[in-house]
């Protein structure tokens, strides 16, 4: 088998292997299903409750996507401002670092007071948790531009706006797309947290409800769905990244 084929097979083999180990551990140790259900139990629960799982997953996907889209818009603007002006950078940095240090779960109760429980706090939590890496990455892309590039444009008579458009934005693109993978995962975490704490829909709510009914296999089915969706969205962003910024990889095909 070639190394290449092995690289493609490896992730599947490892994942299936882990499930097999898990299954074997549960069957051999005879551990109670309401403490640690085997993957087969979680699968059975998933099959039984699939309409609910689907409905709540869609809700979570919606809040995640909405929060993520907001985060991209706001994060890019903030990143551009920070990255192109030292003054803005100096002014905002402590505030941003401070804000980023707050565990976002602590914000949910406040959001509930303002907006009630449900969709809105989930979207906002997804947003606030994920804009930071986007802004930081875009700012880094701008701040690390080779001074010679800027000098070439300045000596041609380019304005700040033109320099930003011709060099800044394209230069920040690979940084932006690299951050999207992280941001979408965080955004997902944010909406699940918010749904768990304060909602009556979404996959986080479903897991909470299942656990209060001692339906542990369904909790695990929910967890597996969360993990699966997380991988799916990460892969989607990685695909977008490869498509949009091929030049940053200098022709070495990372997707293969």
């Amino acid at each position: 088998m070639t190394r290449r084929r092995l690289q493609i097979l490896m992730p599947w083999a490892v994942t299936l292997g882990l499930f097999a180990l898990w299954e074997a551990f549960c069957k051999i140790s005879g551990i109670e299903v309401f403490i640690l259900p085997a993957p087969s139990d979680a699968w059975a629960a998933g099959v039984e409750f699939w309409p609910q799982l689907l409905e709540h997953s869609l809700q979570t996907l919606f809040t995640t996507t909405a929060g993520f889209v907001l985060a991209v818009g706001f994060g890019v603007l903030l990143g551009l401002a920070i990255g192109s002006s030292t003054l803005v950078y100096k002014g905002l940095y402590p505030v941003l670092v401070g804000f980023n240090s707050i565990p976002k779960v602590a914000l949910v109760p406040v959001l509930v007071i303002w907006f009630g429980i449900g969709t809105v706090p989930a979207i906002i939590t997804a947003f606030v948790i994920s804009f930071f890496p986007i802004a930081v990455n875009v700012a880094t892309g701008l701040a690390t531009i080779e001074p010679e590039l800027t000098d070439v444009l300045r000596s041609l008579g380019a304005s700040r706006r033109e320099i930003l458009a011709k060099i800044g934005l394209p230069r920040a693109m690979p940084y932006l797309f690299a951050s999207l993978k992280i941001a979408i995962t965080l955004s997902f975490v944010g909406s699940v947290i918010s749904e768990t704490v304060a909602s009556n829909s979404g996959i986080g709510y479903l897991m909470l409800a299942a656990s209060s009914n001692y339906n542990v296999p369904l909790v695990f089915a929910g967890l597996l769905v969360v993990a699966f969706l997380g991988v799916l969205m990460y892969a989607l962003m990685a695909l977008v990244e490869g498509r949009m910024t091929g030049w940053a990889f200098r022709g070495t095909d990372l997707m293969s």
Partner: protein
Amino acid sequence: MSDPEFHPADFMKPADFMGPADFIKVDGVDMTFSRGEEEVHALRGLDLSIPKGRFVAVVGPSGCGKSTLMRLLTGLAKPSAGTVTLEGAALRGPAKGVGMAFQNASLLPWRSTLSNVMLPFEIVAPHKRRLRANRAEYEARARALLKTVGLEAFADNQPWELSGGMQQRANVARAIVHEPRLMMLDEPFGALDAFTREELWSVMQALWMERGFTAVLITHDLREAVYLADEVLVMSARPGRIVHRQEIDLPRPRTLEMTYEPPFQAHVHSLRDHIQTVREAH
């Protein structure tokens, strides 16, 4: 006065007080950088004057402030003291429409070679306005220039698909495509092998003879300076100023053969002696 550039209207310009020949004039320029507590005097009391259409080379020991001088001449940096005058007007902010080429090719990796070379058209007036409607014409101009520098086959390749020498050709083409009045070259051939470098000298000379821009070339290579320049300026060690000026009266176009002949060698030797003196004085 048989200067073909001369025109009665020139009397109206302050440039005329220094004579119409002064394209660039530098008076008593100091440049000081503060690095934490200590101050670095990069340039002190530097005077310089470059007539229009001249090819001037600047040589000097490493770290003497050559790159700094270049940034001052194009208005990319402001002198700590003294004035820089370009075409009779004191420089405030970057001079427009100057062509620049640095030691590293600094091409934009997300653009093809052709698109990199066309970059100045997107920024410099009047091309900027005309580009959209006349793209075919501009593209033809850029392709013709790429042909001159021997890159016609690589117009549609990405920069990282080019060798170092090819990237440097593209870099020079980009600096020159909009026919700038002033061309600034900061060791653009420094990283190249000897053969490619000598080939590019001849490309550079041909472009200069054809278009007649004013050029300032910074280099460590004395043969390069003598081959290309009308006049070579030697800078002292830091704080840098001009300590020697040498006219290169060799006929044009110069050829590689000439570089092995006594008049050329004499210029190189004389420059080497001056640099040696400057380095020992340090």
